[in-house]
């Protein structure tokens, strides 16, 4: 286990600058649909009430947390060998302890889930690494903190599987020219490969 929650199959705690995220993976365990030919992956994303700088969040899950849960599912599920777990479900519970920039926090959550899934021993095609960028004027800036994100014209989030060479998630929020988008996709994908190397190195060292 890489973090607390000893009842979980796998856990991970991820820090990136001021962002701190903890993830616990439960599974494979009995699924809700007994006739499913492939497993299902569900993600529950929550901010801790004190996580965001702008105001206290309530314990009730807001619409943006529900959407981010879906984003995380769409980004990470392609990497899991769900056909190896029929009738089972794999649940990931992500808690953001401290957040700094929405796109950067989602990227960090994706990285955290990848590490927790590996810790749980879930069969995967590859780990998913994610990275975010913000458009400041005419240049793309990597991994924006909250004040930088508020000032940025556009934010881009990409999740990538370097081994399989597949972009599992892309999210652009804001207006850009097509050339700027192409440039961002290129740069972000390269950065994801670097983040992936860090995750792999850490997972390997945690086995020793």
């Amino acid at each position, binding site marked *: 286990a890489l973090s607390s929650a000893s009842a979980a199959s796998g856990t991970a705690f991820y820090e990136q600058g001021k962002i701190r995220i903890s993830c616990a993976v439960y599974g494979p365990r009995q699924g809700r649909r007994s006739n499913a030919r492939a497993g299902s992956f569900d993600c529950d994303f929550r901010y801790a009430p004190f996580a965001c700088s702008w105001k206290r969040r309530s314990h009730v899950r807001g619409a943006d947390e529900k959407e981010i849960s879906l984003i995380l599912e769409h980004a990470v599920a392609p990497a899991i060998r769900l056909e190896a777990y029929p009738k089972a479900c794999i649940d990931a519970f992500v808690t953001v302890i401290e957040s700094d920039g929405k796109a950067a926090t989602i990227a960090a959550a994706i990285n955290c889930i990848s590490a927790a899934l590996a810790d749980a021993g879930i069969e995967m095609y590859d780990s998913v690494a994610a990275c975010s960028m913000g458009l400041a004027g005419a240049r793309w800036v990597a991994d924006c903190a909250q004040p930088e994100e508020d000032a940025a014209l556009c934010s881009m989030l990409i999740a990538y599987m370097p081994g399989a060479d597949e*972009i599992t998630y892309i999210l652009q929020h804001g*207006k850009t020219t097509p050339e700027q988008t192409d440039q961002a996709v290129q740069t972000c994908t390269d950065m994801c490969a670097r983040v992936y190397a860090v995750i792999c190195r850490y997972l390997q060292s945690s086995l020793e």
Partner: protein
Amino acid sequence: MASLILSPAEQDYITQGVERGLRADGRGGLDRREVTLRTNMISQANGSARCRTGYLGVGTDVLVGIKAEVNSWTAGEPEDRGAVVCSVECSPSAAQEFEGYGAEELNVELTQLLDRILGGPQSGLDLGKLCIIPKQAYWVLHVDALVLDVKGSIVDTLVWAARAALLATRLPRVVVESIADEDGNMQSEFDVVDDAEDQVALEGAENLPLAVTFSQIGKRYVVDASEQEEAVTQARVTVAVSPQMDICAIQKSATARGFAPSLLTEILHSARAIAREEHARFKRVFEAASSDGAAGEPSTGSTFLGTF
């Protein structure tokens, strides 16, 4: 998205067909279905539109109503802008799995996606013009969408209907007066003109984007997936493009797989070409819908449901 349960043989049939460039209804990979549009049928709303994508009167059907409200400014909000708030609901009558809380996840996904496309400066709307008095009052446009029927490609139809509704929206004119009070400070007051003939359109509404959704099936991708094609879709990406060919939003969905980076770049290029055609088509269809004699016609129940 809501999907059918298809047998493995049907799934294979569709997948292999798409890989050979054949779609079940005879379209090409980048062809979209027929669109029927009707605007301003809801007299209580500031703007409304109903859009259906499909053939022979059956297809994905979305109804969008716009209601404008005046909000009082509170500290922390932008001082000189109005706001656009989106909400999408899939009607429980559209599909069996939408009953009760079944559509909740889909509603959240569609609401956030529409908000991402329309809710800020990237939508092209002039939010500054929606401010009535800085630090005091501003217009809030509530974009409420109701998905009435689902036959594949909800997002594209949703954005079409929202764009048509916003273009058809008319706000009452506001008169702002500045009066000096006892201390000599200038106080501003506004008055909403209650005249149905004296209304203004939304500034910048012609800059609103349209969405194109690409669905990957097997090794090829298609645009405007039908219900059956959506059931076999492994990865989907929605690209919102403005009339000036700027990319306003990109969002991927579906969980079976991701996109190869080269395929994603190809899709982004295709998106622009298709968006250009879509914007031209939108203009034609919208002008036909607006000049359809609807101005003098009373919107009774039969015109709403019957001749559509």
